[in-house]
């Protein structure tokens, strides 16, 4: 029995990945990345900017909907989060649907800004809680944004990590391949292998994702949770039991 919730583990792991960033941006419908960014900001030794698009308080853009993309184009966003209906072994992501384009079998909303952000932001963290052969596939049905690009293509960065409810993978852009980096407490490598539709590198010994330290959990629950309640009230109440946003 643990004294932390799975969401808290994910938030802490994602926050670790943001250390040293000057500006982290989080898109819509991302409570866990949003909380991670605010936690990393709280723990940063120097000033760190956090933009949570879905928030009024943590969104200081004043140049309209294009500013996120312009800001990334300028190289002012160090880390961004992307997800996917499907993510494949080459880190291609699909937000459009499954089946044959254009009619598809199942149509999803669409690519949003991924086809640009994946190129413009140095570190992109892929985050998808559902870890199944349906979401982590060998090859996506539609490339909303490619994980890798040929030489000569303008690209500042790309995928660095894939974080799911079961494990953390690191992406090696040169080899175009994921490697299992850590297993969340209680998860076996066999479970991950079964539930992953793409091939990946697997070290002999896979470490366990570090459990959140008590002081950090305290910080998350006391200081960050009320902030998250401003923009994701339902999430904040469910995970942290917080009903009042920070003043």
């Amino acid at each position, binding site marked *: 029995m643990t004294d932390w919730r799975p969401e808290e583990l994910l938030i802490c792991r994602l926050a670790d990945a943001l250390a040293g960033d000057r500006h982290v941006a989080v898109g*819509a*419908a991302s409570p866990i990345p949003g909380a991670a960014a605010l936690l990393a900001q709280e723990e940063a030794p120097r000033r760190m900017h956090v933009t949570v698009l879905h928030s009024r308080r943590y969104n200081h*853009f*004043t*140049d*309209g*909907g*294009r*500013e*996120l*993309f*312009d800001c990334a*184009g300028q190289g002012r966003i160090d880390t961004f989060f992307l997800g996917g209906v499907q993510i494949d072994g080459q880190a291609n992501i699909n*937000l*459009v*649907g499954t089946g044959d*384009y*254009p*009619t*598809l*079998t*199942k*149509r*999803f*909303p*669409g*690519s*949003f*800004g*991924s*086809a*640009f*952000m*994946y*190129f*413009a932001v140095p570190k992109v963290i892929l985050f998808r809680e559902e870890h199944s052969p349906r979401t982590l596939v060998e090859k996506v049905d*539609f*490339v*909303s*944004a*490619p994980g890798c*690009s*040929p030489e*000569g*293509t*303008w690209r500042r960065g790309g995928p660095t990590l894939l974080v799911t409810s079961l494990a953390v993978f690191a992406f090696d852009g040169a080899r175009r391949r994921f490697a299992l980096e850590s297993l969340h407490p209680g998860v076996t490598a066999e479970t991950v292998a079964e539930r992953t539709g793409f091939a990946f590198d697997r070290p002999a010994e896979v470490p366990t994702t570090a459990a959140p330290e008590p002081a950090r959990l305290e910080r998350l629950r006391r200081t960050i949770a009320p902030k998250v309640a401003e923009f994701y009230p*339902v999430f904040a109440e469910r995970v942290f039991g917080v009903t009042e946003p920070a003043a």
Partner: protein
Amino acid sequence: MAMTAFAPISLEALAEAIPDGALLAVPPDYGGVAMAATVALLRRGTGGLRLYCLPYSTLQADLLIGTGAVAEVEAAAITLGEQGLAPRFSAAVEGGRLTMRDSTCPALHAALQAAEKGVPFMPLRGLLGSDILANRPDWKVIDNPFEAGDPIVLLPAVVPDVALFHAPRADAEGNVWIGRRRELATLAHAAKRTLVTVEEVVEGSFFESEGSAANALPALYVEAVAVAPRGAWPCACPGLYDADPAAIGDYAKAARDEAGFRDYLKRLLDGRIAPCVLEVEPA
């Protein structure tokens, strides 16, 4: 006497001003969606619309698509956000009844900025190797003329026939308060005609102080304004009211299938679904 006066028109007249088949540009849910005007447009009856979403749409697009009024959509996404997938959109695409021109947010912004600046195209980074690009024969990849061996995408300018949005207020001169929703300025600059609904028309001019002037879209870009209190409902009106997730949830539930959608639409057009008289069907 100088003819600088401005008079709002009715919601019905505003809906009349949107021709069938128009390339209709609309903002996202956070930008002030003219939902009351959309209902007026559906009441009038419309068809063949080509929606240009800056950069995505929620309830507005799904509703218009569900009625069959939309021939084509260009957007980065159509979704009901936390209320789930946009059901009529998904059904129309899967049924082959809607041409979806999949795009990505910054491309939708940039193509309007090209129109705003009166240039025929804008370059955009990224996109190379995506199936978005592969399915857009109207976009071109050129070699950057300033650096050999550097491919880059060019997007043709998009000039919407009509831009339609909702804003908190207009002043007595017809200037429209858009606040920091600057994409509405680009929308109006780019479009041939701009139609706006507002919560209210206030006295005086936003240009009386610099602090309020910075919030204004000048009347110069606005063809007509209609007053529609709670006119963005159940979407948000930036700075005034938030979205109404329960009302959007009601739609999401009703629109799961064609029959439920038809029933919802009838009630909507009959005025039985409205900000102040929200009917909730028993589950």
